[in-house]
């Protein structure tokens, strides 16, 4: 992940013991409930094939893909809990914001998670699902504009982050190396 994608990381909130007991949830349970809520969400086999390392034990990678855009949900078991990364490539249509925010907000509410934005140190940790849209949209727009400036295009395509790099970045790097000094 990097300048091509916007990533929100969700981790379980610290809570009192009774609440913690209710929140003991495995990766497979979250996968099942996400797919039940959003039937369009499926396992992301393509992402797994492009990874640099073998998947971690118990890890799952999902993808939401419609005409609105594409985002990925990566679930990783960690120290008895589950950490969730949700990310989209900036080249996706801006319409992807809405389902992205819906999934982030739902995860926060359903599993009592808090969220932080990988790209920004100015956004405090999010604990209230009702504030996700108002907090994230300006940040998404800002980072998306940086991507568009860096790669010099406003073209919108439904792609994974790695595919966005392959399409918009790699050709420029290759061309640069072929350009005489």
């Amino acid at each position, binding site marked *: *992940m*990097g*300048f*091509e994608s916007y990533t929100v*990381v969700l981790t379980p909130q610290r809570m009192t013991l009774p609440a913690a007991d209710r929140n003991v949830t495995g990766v497979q349970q979250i996968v099942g409930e996400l797919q039940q809520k959003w039937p369009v969400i499926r396992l992301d086999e393509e992402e797994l*094939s*492009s*990874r*640099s*390392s*073998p998947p*971690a034990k118990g890890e799952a990678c999902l993808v939401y893909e419609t005409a609105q855009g594409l985002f990925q949900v990566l679930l*990783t078991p*960690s120290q008895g809990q589950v*950490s969730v990364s949700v990310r989209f490539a900036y080249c996706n249509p801006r319409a992807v914001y809405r389902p992205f925010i819906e999934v982030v907000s739902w995860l926060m509410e359903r599993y009592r998670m808090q969220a*932080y*934005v*990988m*790209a*920004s*140190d100015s956004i405090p940790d999010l604990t209230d699902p009702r504030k996700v849209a108002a907090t994230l949209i300006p940040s998404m727009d800002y980072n998306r504009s*940086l991507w568009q*400036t*860096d790669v010099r295009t406003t073209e919108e395509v439904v792609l994974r982050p*790695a*595919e966005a*790099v*392959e399409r918009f*970045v*790699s050709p*420029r*790097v290759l*061309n*640069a*190396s072929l350009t005489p000094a």
Partner: protein
Amino acid sequence: MPVTTGDNLEPLMAGTGWFATQAVVDAAKVNAYAEEMAQGNWTWLPLNRQNPIIVDQSGKIMSGHHRLVAARIADVVVPEAAIQRFPGMTLRPVKLWHDVRVR
């Protein structure tokens, strides 16, 4: 030496010539990558050549913060072929390594 939440990355990343543009790195991810690298299980560029590390002309990391930090922890050299040099400079502001939060 694995990183833990709240660590200062400055000592680890000093002298690399790489500058951060991301505010946060995930300790669990970095440590998992470092372990794979140290064990020789890491594929720097998969066969489909997706997911390269991308660094701009001034050394600002555009993509690959976790991998570059992990390489330092594992004390392995990142092959030059794994790094794509982006022409020009990204507009993304530099974050000093000691300001990058390890979570």
